[in-house]
């Protein structure tokens, strides 16, 4: 079912970094996606437009892939919907508490060797693996 895709993983990773790097060098902003989205939801005037445009650009790119290569996306939910909803709430609250997700802490923070980001990334990787392997595996199987 799953397969290792080294070339597209490296190319995609490079594009993600290019996006975050250009935002940083151009505007000084660390465009971690949970932070961009939370600020977009908060809707603070003066700080909203760039967030809306960044998200619009990302979604527009996704829409192009949906038109040209719909297999880019999963059609089937990865888990029962109650579990997906639970995971969404946990991700929403957790990323606000710790101020970052895979892009903000995992990429922007770790690459500058921020101690906070190294700790956060270590914690969410270990718990992500443990949860998916121990609990998630069983719960998803039960779906």
């Amino acid at each position, binding site marked *: *079912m799953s397969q290792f895709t080294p070339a597209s993983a490296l190319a995609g990773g490079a594009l993600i970094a290019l996006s975050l790097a250009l935002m940083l060098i151009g505007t*000084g902003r660390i465009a971690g996606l*949970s932070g961009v989205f939370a600020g977009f939801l908060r809707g603070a005037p003066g700080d909203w437009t760039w967030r809306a445009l960044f998200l619009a650009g990302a979604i527009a790119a*996704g829409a192009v892939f949906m038109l040209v290569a719909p297999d880019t996306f999963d059609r089937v939910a990865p888990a029962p919907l109650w579990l997906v*909803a639970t*995971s969404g709430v946990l991700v929403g*609250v957790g*990323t606000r508490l710790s101020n970052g*997700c895979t892009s903000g802490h995992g990429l922007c923070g770790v690459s500058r060797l921020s101690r906070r980001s190294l700790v956060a990334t270590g914690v969410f990787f270990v718990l992500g693996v443990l949860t*998916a392997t121990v609990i998630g595996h069983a719960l998803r199987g039960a779906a």
Partner: protein
Amino acid sequence: MSTRRNDRALALACGALFGTGVCVSGMVRPSKILAFLDLRGDWDPSLLLVMGAALALQAVAWGIVRRMRAPVLGGRFPGPSTGGIDARLAGGAALFGVGWGLGGFCPGPAMVSTVSGATGSLVFVASMAAGMLGYQWLDAVAGKQDEAMTPDAKDAS
């Protein structure tokens, strides 16, 4: 004025680059992220290469930033992260990790994947937004309580 326009154009372009990157890398598919996180499944190390390539380039970007005085379009570079390592950071990262392991969705790729109309993506992004808004609301209420306490504290001193 033109700086502001450039700023907006850059945000849109960088958003498009990000969206393309998460599509190309396969990170928009929770099944691919779970194939990395779930060690008991058919293990797929792709996520490590996505992170590795991105981290290498991002480290170069920080190197460039260190030689610059200010961002190209104005503003300021972020200073060193000021907060300490506390329960809030670790607890938040732990909640995120558990949520990530249950669903396989990263916040950014999940938002991009809503274009597919897949129910899982829509439910995830809606509940993530609810979690963020709920947290912001609680945080604001707690902040108001702190403010309400302050005059008393001042009186007492």
